[in-house]
């Protein structure tokens, strides 16, 4: 066994043992629901890895006040008076799901290494990587692919790295592509915005909003997978780390103080 595999295996075992003392292993649906709740709210302060608040690492059992799942659930629901941690409007089930997600972070062998350089990553994204031909960052680039302006708020470094080297697999529904062929034989493709029984609405390849009546179309097809190619052989591992470092630094548009 390679030494690093042993380390990973041991980490998993120790994490499982730790969990076992507290509760059953969470089910995948709970983890997924918990992730949605975490990303939608908690990640704003705690970051996608749960380690953005100094001294706290939610994914690796580093808490200031909690020592059990019950403590965590209580804090998630009631907040911590006198601190920046507000009470959350969650049911007991939802709070349990958030804890399930935090525990799954602890089980994950992947952890951001923060070995990349943010400014080099930005240069790569705008230059060699040609990312802006599909993506947009803070108003620059294309609208065809997902907007990356707040991707650092939403996705963990490990997830971003995986998406760069292995973009296969389904994309999120809001990033689905559509292709239509009109009865005149014209083919138009773009990002699907909405559709119903009578219409297809898209952002076409020239970034125009287009609406088509299905009665005027010969063909409609949807794609649920990414058109992106892998950067595994196009960028060095250091370059990928730089790119990830830049992406994780993107936190979206913040409201300005008056």
């Amino acid at each position: 066994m390679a030494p690093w595999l042993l380390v990973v295996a041991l980490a998993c075992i120790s994490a499982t043992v730790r969990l076992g003392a507290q509760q059953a292993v969470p089910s995948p649906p709970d983890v997924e629901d918990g992730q949605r709740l975490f990303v939608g709210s908690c990640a704003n302060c705690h970051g996608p890895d749960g380690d953005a608040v100094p001294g706290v690492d939610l994914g690796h059992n580093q808490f200031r006040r909690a020592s059990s799942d019950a403590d965590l659930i209580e804090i998630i629901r009631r907040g911590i008076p006198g601190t920046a941690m507000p009470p959350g409007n969650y049911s007991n089930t939802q709070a349990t799901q958030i804890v399930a997600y935090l525990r799954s972070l602890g089980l994950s062998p992947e952890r951001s290494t923060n070995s990349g350089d943010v400014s080099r990553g930005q240069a790569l994204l705008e230059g060699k990587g040609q990312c802006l031909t599909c993506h947009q960052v803070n108003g620059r680039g294309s609208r065809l692919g997902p907007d990356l302006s707040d991707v650092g708020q939403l996705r963990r470094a490990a997830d971003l790295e995986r998406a760069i080297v292995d973009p296969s697999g389904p994309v999120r529904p809001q990033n689905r592509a559509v292709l239509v062929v009109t009865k005149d034989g014209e083919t138009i493709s773009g990002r699907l915005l909405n559709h119903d029984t009578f219409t297809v609405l898209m952002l076409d390849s020239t970034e125009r909003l287009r609406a088509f009546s299905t009665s005027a179309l010969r063909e409609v097809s949807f794609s649920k997978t990414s058109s992106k190619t892998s950067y595994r052989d196009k960028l060095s591992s250091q370059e990928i780390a730089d790119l990830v470092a830049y992406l994780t630094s993107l936190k979206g548009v913040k409201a300005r103080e008056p």
Partner: protein
Amino acid sequence: MMKRVLFALLVTGSTLQAQVSFERLLRSDNEPQNWLTYSGSLRGQRYSTLAQITPANVGNLDPQWIFQSRSLEKFEATPLVVDGVMYTVQAPNDIVALDAATGRVFWVYSYRPSTLARLCCGRVNRGLAILGDTLYMGTIDGHLIAVDAQDGRLVWDVKLTKPEAGYSLTLAPLIVKDKVIVGPAGGEYGIRGFVAAYEARTGKEIWRFYTIAGPGEPGRETWGGDSWKTGGGSIWVTGSYDPESNLTYWGIGNAGPDRNGDSRPGDNLYTSSVVALDADSGKLKWHYQFSPHDEFDQDATQIAVLANLQWKGAPRKVMLWANRNGYFYVLDRTTGEFLSGTPFVRVTWAEGFDKQGRPNRVPGQEPTPQGTLVYPGNQGATNWYSPSYSPRTGLFYVPTWVNYASLFIKRPSTYVEGQYFGGGEGRATDAQGLRTGTNNLRTEDEGYGAILAIDPLTGTRKWEYKMTDFTDAGVLTTASDLLFSGGREGYFYALDARTGALLWKFTVGGQVQSSPMTYSAGGRQYVVVNAGSSLFAFALRQ
């Protein structure tokens, strides 16, 4: 001047004579200009003999007036129309009386429900009943009230049950003779459901049938331990009535906790069943359980549709039922005999029936902590919104969720009064989820809505009208072979009831979460549907 006053009084007096006797409710076919009950008749067919609007002229249908409710709740009520006056419910519990020809509001009666009311799925109401000059409404905090149909004055108000324990009334009441019959929703709160009849004049309770069999009652043995106390068995929609047998038919909701049956071993009667009750005494005549020991939230809260068919060469009085569990049933409505059960969508939890009509369960198809993929999904193959039966085409029409599955997840569930008692969840399988109100990016293989036309004699599909999104809209058919429905996409449309061909559509700009109805006023046929927060009245362009 005196003559004018006298004339005015005489005119007003004539409406007072137009009381809605039970005789009129029984013979509603004789007055298709009115819509006197939730489904248009006590048979639950949602079929009208009006035929001014036809497949040839339906293209000229235009909105005539719109009523905008002052409520952001789902607008699920089917209005009544009585001699030119429309009565509907602005959610949760405001009764509105309008001029059926113009949409002008005569009066609004506002009921303020208790803040203790607990509802799983919206503070909704599905409509009213009328008898004599009195309107009857169930409230979300478990009251049944009687209101004067002329001036909106409260006549009586009876608290039936405990709102803080999750009992709520969302259905339109059923009138049989001199009684008002209702039952509570609350299947996600561990209620013990019932159907009960109240004296229309006073609100005094006459009989009560518990939908969960308790001590000393047949069926008690189908509940392990004390699980019957929190067994669910809710009522969401109006029952039907057959005057020849004096039986009233009610569809019963899921067992509680919904997705975890460990604490309630047994069949759990009478959840997910239809019961036939004597209308005078409330005594159970027969029952049929669609989903024994349900763990998929398969409420049988659909409208019981009564029809007379030539069944295998002989006339037979039947009940037609497209169930949330994915099967279309034909039952003998006098005896409860199971005549046929045919899947109308993909079904994985059961495979056919034994001779008594009990579904054969598929091993492994049950909720688990990890989640089990089951067709149909949590919202069911269909739900509370009304189907329709046209005696002219002989077809049964049902709004349907096709290609639809959920991941059924089982969780521990402890009963606490007034708290959700679901035993897990039926989770959407597509990444976008079905719970969001965002744009539709779903593809056909991930599920879609449709109107299916089913031949009850064979259980086979005659035609299918596909929509891209799911639907919570009921179906209306008419004697001109038109079918009206809508869906989540915000269209209201007319199909040819014989072929399913689209004949007309209108963008109502909001989800249709109600069942359409029709009536006639001033010589014009109107078709009405709610969409979003508004009620739309359509008629032919003049």
